[in-house]
Every structure is written in C-alpha cells, then in structure tokens.
C-alpha cells in the first residue's frame, strides 16, 4: 500500500512533469542546434563536419543518439541525483516523514518503495528522452541506417555502420543499460539525503559530488583513479553501438555500476534505519 500511496504522490507532484518538460526543451534545443549548424556550416568545427558532409550520415537515428548522449551526460544524472536527494530529506523537512513513519511500516519498506518508484521514474524519463528523440528525429529528419564516425563524442574510433533494424535493437538495449548507470547517482542522492533534513542541501551536494567525480573521471591527470570511479563507467552503454559489442566489457561495466548502486543503496538504507527523526 505504501507503493500505491507514493505513486499517487509522485503522479500528483510536479516533479515528473518538470522533468518531462526539461527533456522536451532539451530535444528541441538539440534539433535547433543541428539545423542552425547545418545552415551556418562553412567549414568550422572539423568533427561535426562528418555529420553534414553527407546528409545520409545525419538522420533521425543519429540525432536521437547524439541527443540521448548529451542528455545522458548532462540532464539525466542531475535529475537522478535530485530525485534521490528529494526523497528522505524532502519528507523530513516537510514533516511528512513523521506522518508516514507513525504508521505500522518498517523503514526498510518505506525506503524500498521510494527507491523503486524513483528508479521507475528514472527508467521512464530515460525512455522518454530516447523515444522522444527518435520520434523527433523520424518526423524532422527521417530514419535510415546509423553511421557514426570518430569525433568529439568519442562514440567510436572508426566508421561504424549499423542497419536500421540493428540500430533500433541497440537503442532498446541501451535504455535499461543507461538506466542502470543512472541508478548510481540516484542512490548516491538517496544516501546523501539520509544525512540531513534539507532537500536543497542534499540535492546540491549530490549534484556537486556527481559533477566533481565526472570531471575527475574525464581528466587525464586522474587516470589512475578512473577504475575506482563510477562516473568513468557511466557511458558504458555506448559500447552497444559498435558493430560487434564487447559483451564482456559491457557486463563488467554494468556489474561495476550495479555494485556502486547497491553500495550506495545499502549505505542509505542502513543510515535511514538508524537515523533519529528529530
């Protein structure tokens, strides 16, 4: 029953709609960017030139993949961290945690309900970003085969060609894989939110921590740290868009991210169960 109640609260809240609106705005911005670039392209940025030299490279699937990649890097982890951080601290600051915890309900069940629902929300949001990007790409540009070239996105180190059917299947696989990666900032946000009663502080700290770790994982200077950072594995799902995915690598990276998610989730639950509600 707590799941039903939390679902009702989530559906009635503004958070999912704000997230969806942000995703829609982001996609429109990406589309405008692609068109503006194409119009103004006069031999500027070398990496992107591949995309526009031949219109067949730039189709709806390319747009969807690039949009998803950028959205995944910037928008979704922030929403994941925010969503996690809003859960415990948000209810604590408003006093609603008293209301829920004064019912015959274990803290573990309340925690699980919140985690499952926010995880589902991230899954849906990830699907919305990917699906809406593909739909927009289909309507605005049209689908076709997926051609990728080495470039600034570091999606590939050589030309990749995937037929439309294969590419759509890879998109489908990338959805849960990306959601798994996003579960780490989500559970990190949960963990941080169990330390205080201010959702703003928790959200700020969770997002800041994620961004710092992400930047650290991208800087060559910290190369030795990369294996120990979850942020260095976040975009592992890009491996699905190789002609022959390295399944072993994908499984290892997925296991690493799952391990981090379980670690943060366990720490959050342990902290929440021992925490005093002052």
């Amino acid at each position: 029953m707590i799941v039903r109640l939390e679902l009702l609260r989530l559906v009635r809240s503004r958070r999912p709609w704000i997230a969806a609106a942000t995703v829609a705005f982001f996609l429109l911005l990406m589309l405008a960017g692609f068109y503006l670039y194409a119009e103004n392209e006069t031999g500027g940025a070398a990496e992107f030139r591949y995309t526009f030299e031949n219109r067949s490279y730039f189709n709806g699937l390319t747009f969807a993949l690039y949009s998803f990649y950028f959205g995944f890097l910037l928008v979704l982890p922030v929403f994941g961290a925010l969503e996690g951080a809003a859960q415990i601290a948000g209810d604590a600051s408003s006093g609603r945690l008293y209301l829920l915890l004064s019912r015959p309900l274990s803290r573990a069940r309340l925690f699980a309900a919140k985690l499952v629902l926010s995880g589902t929300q991230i899954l849906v949001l990830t699907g919305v970003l990917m699906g809406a990007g593909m739909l927009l790409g289909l309507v605005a540009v049209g689908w076709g085969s997926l051609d990728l070239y080495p470039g600034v996105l570091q999606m590939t180190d050589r030309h990749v060609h995937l037929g439309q059917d294969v590419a759509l299947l890879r998109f489908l696989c990338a959805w849960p894989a990306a959601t798994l990666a996003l579960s780490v900032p989500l559970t990190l946000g949960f963990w941080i939110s169990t330390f205080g009663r201010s959702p703003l502080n928790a959200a700020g700290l969770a997002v800041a921590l994620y961004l710092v770790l992400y930047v650290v994982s991208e800087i060559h200077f910290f190369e030795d740290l990369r294996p120990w950072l979850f942020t260095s594995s976040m975009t592992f799902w890009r491996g699905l868009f190789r002609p022959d995915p390295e399944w072993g690598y994908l499984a290892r990276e997925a296991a690493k991210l799952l391990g981090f998610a379980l670690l943060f989730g366990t720490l959050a639950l342990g902290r929440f169960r021992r925490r005093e509600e002052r």
Partner: protein
Amino acid sequence: MDEGGNTRGDALVRARGLGYRYGSRTALHDVDLELGPGEIVGLAGPNGSGKTTLLKLLAGFLRPAEGELLVLGRRPFRDAPRMLRDVRFAFAPPALLERLTAREHLRHLPAIGGPRPEPREIAATLSAVGLEERADESVAGFSFGMRQRLSLAQALLPRPRLLVLDEPNDGLDPLAVLELRALLLRLRDEEGMSVLLSSHLLLELGELVDRLLVLAEGETLFYGPPARLTGARAGVRLVVSDAGAALARLRARGLEVRAAAGGELELPPESLSLGEAHALLRDLGLESYRLHRPGLEEALLELLRARAGEGECP
C-alpha cells in the same frame, strides 16, 4: 487508577527514568510516565520543556539516551512497526500529503500496514471532525484548523488503543475545541481508548485529563491528577495595604507566608485557624482574607516561578 493517580493493571505506556539529549543539551531527564487503558493523560509545560521530544520518543523517532520506555510492551525505536499497529499519532504542526484530498488521506494512510478502511468508516470519520463537505478537496487549500482536523481524523483510522495528540487544539475555533473534547471523552468512555495529549491550553487539559505531566527544561515538575496540583497550591490569601510590613510581621510570628500575585500574601490553609485569621485582621491591619484555590494555569505558573527561583517551592 488509584487515589494517588497511579495506573492499575497493564500500562500501555511505561517510562522509567527516561532521558534524551540533543548533542550536549539535555532535552529530557529522568521522566516517569504511566498510561493505563482508558486513561487520558495530559502533557504540559513551556516551550522547549521536552513535550515534543517525549512524543517523538513514544513514536520511535528517537532512541532514548537513558531510562526505559515501553509502549504496548515494546521498545518504540527498535520495534516501531509492530507497536504502531495499535498506536496513532497526530503531530504538530500537522503535516499532510499536499496534493491528496482529505478522503484520499483516510483511504490510503490507514491502509499502510492495516486493512483498507470501508467508505462508510471514512465518511463517518470525516463527519466526526467536521470535514465531510471538504472531503474531496486537495488539502493544499486547507486552513490550519482544517489540517488539524484531518490530522486527527487520520489518527482515528483504524481505531487505535492509544491515541497520541500533539497540540490538537492549535488553530481550532472554540466550538471545535469543545467538539474535540467531547470526541476524546466519548472515545475513552465508549471505546476504552487511551489518550496522551500535549497542549498549551491548560484550562482544556484540566477539563479532560485524568493525570497531568508537567515538564520544565526536560524534567518532571509535576505528575499526578490536576486536582492535586491546584489543591497543593490552595491557601489563605491576605489582602493588605502594606505587603512588605505585613510579610515581616507574619514571618516574625513564625508563619510560613509568601508573596502572591497582585501584592497579596498567601499562607498555607492549615497554617492558621479562622479565629487566628480574624485576630490577624485586627492586629496587622489586614483589609480582608479569603480561601484561594488557583486554577490550573495559575498553579502551573506558580510552579514554574518557584522552579525559576521567583517564589518558594510548595
């Protein structure tokens, strides 16, 4: 309950030497409390006296730093879910689920760890707190008083053995205060429900409770039937023109006397007979005297003043 105000039989709440600290600050120290079946116990004290801390300990939100606390035979912090099957809380200020309606609150909250209430039960409870006409409105538009009513309503479904209310009268209009009193008395008399409520409205507590626990700075200032508190403060009030001179002369006669409110002097009732009082009137130039039994508010105020060193302890 016996004559001394002690609980008979199995206590629903049993606290012995209970204490809690927020860091280095002691919020509660050495508090005893018992609440038996069908009893109403009041919790009073100034702001920061430890009332809410005590209620949070009862709810299992806090872990006692000292002493022992059992609610329905269970330790709240360790075993809250099972304990809470038969205990309901309404905390202040009332925190509600903003985008849900009043009816949805009563449909979904009681179903957490319990049976889903029947629509007629929900309707009856909404009616009991006077919210039937606003039942399907989002609580985001509710006034503070309406939130208080809904907070109470959610605590009544399903019926608990022990109801704990934190400042339930706050924000209620006078009629609603009377209705709440009638409701609590009916729940006690007809259903044997036990109630623990904290309130700043001492007049209301005096009308309602079997026993009163008064806290000040986290410690027990008084624990017992309210009549014992007011009775202990009863005395003979002397109305005098020169309080200072009269006080000195009375003390010179070996009488235990203290300054009371309004420039009057007060003696314990057993300290002088009627004849002696008349003699005092003649000898000391007293204007009048009367037997004075203070109300709960006055008695509590004097108790607090005595604790703060502004008067003498009883």
